[in-house]
């Protein structure tokens, strides 16, 4: 479903990604972990072209999305993204946030979009906050609305960029629960996270990045019990 081939990304003189290659199969849940500044988020953002790789190719369903001829907007319709800081539209209610893209991008009628929006808000447990503006919501609630907003486009792939890092500890679980529910629907998911237990529990595969290099790519049990590189060992000692 997703294939990255030797992706590099350079910001000025700083080489953030140094040739990353990996694949994500349909319905697979992949978590990316690693120390701050290792390039996790940058790699994730390359997958929906919020960052353009300096070199290398990315294929989604066998289409090369890094080709200059490709229409980025078309690609992004099929890839939902959830951000660390939510980025809900502050001048729209929770429901309007979810309804916006189906109406504007897919051209659905207001009624159809409203139906989708209400269903999704119910799914993330936010029905009673449909009419609330984002600044009336807690961090966990905002993130659940943001997940619903991304799902409203019915994407095949969902990207999560540290979705619980900006939350108060007591709100982490409600967001992880929603994500866990999503893994059970067979959604293809790539998740950058610092929640090791969550990564262990839901992931089919763990990618460990350090200093722009993909050091490990294994199934979670092997990674968490017996990491093969020293970097991963010392990282896990610090965070577990």
């Amino acid at each position: 479903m997703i294939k990255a081939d030797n992706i590099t990304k350079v910001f000025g003189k700083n080489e953030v990604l140094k040739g990353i290659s990996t694949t994500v199969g349909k319905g697979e849940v992949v978590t990316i972990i690693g120390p701050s500044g290792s390039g996790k988020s940058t790699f994730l953002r390359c997958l929906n072209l919020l960052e353009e790789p300096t070199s290398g190719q990315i294929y989604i369903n066998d289409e090369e999305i890094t080709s200059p001829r490709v229409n980025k907007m078309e690609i992004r319709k099929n890839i939902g993204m959830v951000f660390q800081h939510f980025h809900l539209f502050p001048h729209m209610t929770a429901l309007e946030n979810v309804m916006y893209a189906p109406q504007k991008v897919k051209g659905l009628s207001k009624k159809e979009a409203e139906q989708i929006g209400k269903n999704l808000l119910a799914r993330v447990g936010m029905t009673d906050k449909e009419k609330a503006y984002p600044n009336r919501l807690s961090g966990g609630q905002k993130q659940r609305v943001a997940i619903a907003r991304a799902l409203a486009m019915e994407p095949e792939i969902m990207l999560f960029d540290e979705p619980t890092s900006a939350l108060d500890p007591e709100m982490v679980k409600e967001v992880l629960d929603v994500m866990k529910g999503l893994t059970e629907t067979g959604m293809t998911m790539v998740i950058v996270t610092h929640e090791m237990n969550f990564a262990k529990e839901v992931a089919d595969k763990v990618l460990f990045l350090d200093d722009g290099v993909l050091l490990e790519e294994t199934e979670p049990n092997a990674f968490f019990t017996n990491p093969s590189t020293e970097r991963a060992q010392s990282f896990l000692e610090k965070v577990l």
Partner: protein
Amino acid sequence: MNLDFSQIVPYIPFILEGIGATLKFVSVSILAGFILGTILAIFKITEFWPLKTIADIYTSIFRGTPLILQLMIIYLAIPQLTGYDISAFLSAVLAFGLNSAAYVSEIIRAGIMAVDKGQTEAAKALGVPYRSMMLNIILPQAFKNILPALMNEFITLTKESALVSTIGYLDLMRRAQIAGADLYRNFEPLFFAGVIYWVMVTILTLAGRYVERRMRQSD
């Protein structure tokens, strides 16, 4: 003290007619300046440099020269160069609208830049086209933040509108001057016009506060 407001009473209807004349070209100028200013602001933030350069040069010219000079050039030079006999009204709307656009574009540009970059990213990630993103996501948030600055610009324009008296447009200011010349007393009609300007600006200020409150609903 030589002060007699009763003498201007016969001139009151004549002066009051100036309110309509002033409001007519001020409102058209504000609207024109606002629309053109928004377009220029969007030019300024594009990565396409020719548009950016055009907008920057435009702003530089209209902010870098006196408004009264721009007004004179439009009113006097257009007939000389093209033979088209431009009316005082059209000259006024053009000068004030084009001039205001330069200032408004800077205000809006700053407002757009101040909107969290995450908003753009969220819209892009959803596949929202640029135009919709600007109109529905970025500009509404930008306008909310810059409303006080925009109101300030509109108030300035309303007061500066008195400059059109210099090209013979019968606005509030010009009518007060004419009444003054007829009566050989200037203080009373000018004072009267001053009060009217103050009332207009106050109404504009209150309207601005009202809109601001409405827009803060989501806070």
